[in-house]
């Protein structure tokens, strides 16, 4: 059963919330701030871009990020090689003053599928430089095992491609992965509904990371709250132990002593 002390740990640090929230694509900084205030996420993701006209909102975002007082998880979004990841992570560490890094190494621009063949070597390189690596990966069991082998203390399998909102597409693989690996696992990407988040938490995942499902909702603030509640519900259900499903109906009301039984 869920208690107020249902904390969890990543790289030795304790978190109360099991929701990690992205900061992109919100209608306004004010709406982002209100969503964060209601959802109370464990971490907020952020990124880095060239200082150009496209990044003109950077000072506003930086000020907001500092005011929200939530740990920041920088990402390496857009990187296509281990070298790009390494350089970006180092730059992120200096800017955000944190060793946390969400490792994104893209292998296919159309699906934004991670480069699964090079992800372990990228993680290995970052971990050896003292980063606390949270790798965005697929639900492939062997890949996740390799990431753990090189020192990742948690993995972040996708539910579906980034931004699709399709929810967990491969339930069998995700449930198998959860059963096979004994490290914290955060479902990252592809969640569209609070029920998706609730489902993966029911399967025993430790947390979820999402962005678009909240940011593109008609009411992002209350959708953030809905996701936070769904995560808590799923976690509580997992801890409570669900009943076994049955093929045939089983009456919940006792049948013994049913009046008028077999009178006809």
């Amino acid at each position, binding site marked *: 059963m869920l208690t107020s002390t249902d904390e969890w740990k990543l790289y030795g640090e304790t978190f109360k919330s099991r929701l990690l929230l992205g900061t992109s694509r919100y209608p306004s900084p004010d709406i982002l701030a209100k969503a964060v205030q209601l959802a109370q996420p464990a971490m907020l993701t*952020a990124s*880095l871009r060239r*200082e150009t006209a496209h*990044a003109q909102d950077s000072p506003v*975002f930086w000020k907001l990020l500092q005011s929200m007082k939530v740990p920041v998880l920088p990402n390496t979004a857009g990187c296509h090689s281990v070298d*790009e990841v390494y*350089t970006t992570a180092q*730059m992120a560490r200096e*800017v955000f003053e944190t060793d946390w890094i969400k490792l994104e190494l893209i292998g296919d621009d159309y699906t934004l599928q991670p480069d699964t063949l090079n992800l372990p070597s990228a993680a290995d390189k970052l971990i050896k430089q003292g980063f606390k690596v949270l790798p965005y990966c697929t639900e492939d069991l062997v890949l996740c095992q390799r990431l753990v082998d090189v020192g990742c203390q948690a993995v972040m399998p996708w539910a579906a491609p980034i931004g699709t909102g399709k929810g967990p597409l491969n339930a069998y693989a995700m449930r198998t992965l959860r059963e096979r690996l004994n490290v914290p696992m955060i479902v990252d990407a592809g969640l569209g509904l609070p029920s998706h988040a609730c489902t993966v938490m029911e399967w025993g995942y430790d947390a979820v990371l999402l962005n678009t499902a909240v940011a593109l909702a008609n009411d992002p603030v209350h959708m953030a709250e809905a996701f936070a509640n769904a995560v808590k519900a799923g976690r509580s259900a997992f801890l409570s132990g669900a009943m076994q499903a049955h093929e045939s109906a089983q009456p919940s009301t006792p049948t013994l002593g049913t009046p008028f039984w077999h009178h006809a």
Partner: protein
Amino acid sequence: MLIWINQQTYELPLDATLQDAIALTHIAPPFAAAVNAQFIPKTLYAQTLLNDNDKIELIVPITGG
């Protein structure tokens, strides 16, 4: 010599450092720098000599997922 900062060209003297190059821009902290895709810590800006056609990236925090 010619250097590139975020894909724009700038003229700098031959003994210019990364710190000199950054001073040409109006970038405000926080930011981080890389020269030819290699990260340069801010403590090394003043002693990092540039070469002709070096490519400097100055990056700033933005929203992300």
